[in-house]
Structure formats: C-alpha cells, structure tokens
C-alpha cells in the first residue's frame, strides 16, 4: 500500500506528508466510508455532517477565524444535503478570499450531466460518483498532483 504523497511538484500540496481533508456528508455511513478510504491513502480526515459545520471548521462561518485555514488541503463534499447543498458550499468556498484556492471535490450518487457541469463550472476540481472505490481516491490523488499514470 502506497503511503503518503510524493513531494514532487504538486503546487499547494508540496511537502505535505499527510494531506488534511475535510469530508462533508449528511449520511453517517457515507462519512464513515469516505473517511476510511481517505485514511487508507494516508490522509488526515475531519468530517462534517453539513455545509454549515464545514464552513465553521474552515473559519467561514458566523464567527470567522483563520485557525484551520492553512490546515485543510482538500474539501470533499456530497452534493445532496439538506440545508446547504454541496454546490452552495462549493460557491461559498470559492467566493472566500482565504479559501478559494483549496480544491473542492463533489460527490453524488446520481449521474446528472447538468449537475456535473454546473459544479465544474463553479470551480470544483472533480466530480465523483458514489459509491466511491479505492481506485477513485487514487485517481483523485493523481489528478490533484498532476501525475501521469
């Protein structure tokens, strides 16, 4: 099993031994599975059960603070969530001057082309279809590190 990320040119992920990923999903099963998938690829994982909690963690909530800003290397979020959707969360992150460079990946159990293009247009790095496999996380790593297979 590969461990960690290599340090060869990855822009913002340079010298990051254990990327910190914020995983957002309203389903407890999905959170558990995504966390394990990411941990198996040497990521440090924080989970949030909705967009509001995610924004709070990122310091973009009602009481702005920047203590977690430099820590998070990637946000991976479900699309369909009650309250704030993953798309709305993506927008808020991309609108923030402090967090807009952080890559955001959207997950969904539904393969809806409009939904996918809408998210990519708004700046999502990738769209992943659930259920997510280990090969998807591997592909995600490669994509974010611009490596060639």
């Amino acid at each position, binding site marked *: 099993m590969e461990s960690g990320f290599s340090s060869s040119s990855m822009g913002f992920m340079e010298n990051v031994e254990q990327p910190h990923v914020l995983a957002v999903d309203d*389903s*407890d*099963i*999905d959170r*558990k*599975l995504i966390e*394990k*998938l990411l*941990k*198996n690829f040497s990521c440090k994982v924080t989970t949030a059960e909705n967009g509001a909690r995610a924004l709070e963690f990122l310091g973009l909530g009602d009481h702005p603070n920047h203590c977690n800003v430099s820590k998070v290397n990637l946000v991976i979020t479900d699309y*369909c969530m009650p309250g704030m959707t993953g798309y709305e969360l993506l927008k808020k992150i991309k609108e923030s001057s402090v967090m807009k460079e952080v890559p955001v990946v959207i997950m969904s*159990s539904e393969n809806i082309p409009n939904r996918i293009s809408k998210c990519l247009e708004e700046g999502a790095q990738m769209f992943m279809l*659930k*259920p997510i*496999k*280990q090969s998807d996380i591997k592909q995600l790593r490669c994509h974010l590190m611009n490596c060639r297979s």
Partner: protein
Amino acid sequence: MDAVAQWRNQWFDYTHYLRREGFLDDQFAQLKKLQDENSPDFVVEVVSLFFQDSEKLLNNMARALEQNVVDFKQVDACVHQFKGSSAWIGAMRLKNVCINFRNYCEAQNLEGCLGCLQQVRQECLALKNNLENLFRLEQQIVAAGGSIPVME
C-alpha cells in the same frame, strides 16, 4: 480435509451463492478491501450501521405513507438515502427495489409505494440473515486457525 479447508470451501460456496442470487455485488468486495489491521471490524461496523439506519428510514417511510395526504417527496428523499447506503455495501437487490420505489414516488402511486416498502423490508431481512451467516462462517475460519479468503 481439515477444518480450515472445509470452512473455506463453505465460504466460497456461500459467497458464490450470494453473488449469483444478486444479494451482493462487486461493491461488497470493495468494502472488504477497506478493512485492515487498523480497523479489523470495519465491515461488521459498516453493516451494523447500515441496518440501524435502515430501521429508521423504513419507519420514516411507513409513517409518511400512512398520512392522509402523502408527501411523496419526503418518501422519495428517504428512499434516495436508502438506495445510496445499499449501493455502498453492495446490496444489489435492495438497490434495485429502491429504484422501483423511487419511480412509484415520482408517479405518486401509493399502492406501488406500499408494495415496494414491503419488498424492501423483506429484502432487508434476507440480507441481514445472509450477512450474519457469512460473518459466522468467517469467524469459524479464524477460530480454526485459518485466514478469510479475499473476495474477488
């Protein structure tokens, strides 16, 4: 044939049966791959969580379908969540019933929905029994000093 070999043969037969009958698909093998020394009970934990959640979702669906004015969108939201979880653990038959269920929700067909709800309950129970059998077999293999085969 020694005890380990016997139990392992039973395991192969049983998993082939589960795959053939559509109770489990490839995604279950993916789930098993996630288990490691750091989390040796991962699969059992996920499966337990699934059945706990499904209990709640099924009750919510039943309650929603009992109302004088049925909120089909609410039922659909529950089914959508249930379908998602079923897909994660490779519960193919359950997932397929959910697809039908969602179609009936969209068509606002109460009878169809009630039929699907019953089917979901039955499939859930069958899957629970099947998985308990599978886990028991795996315990037997380990107790006999063997290792659980890798699911392809």
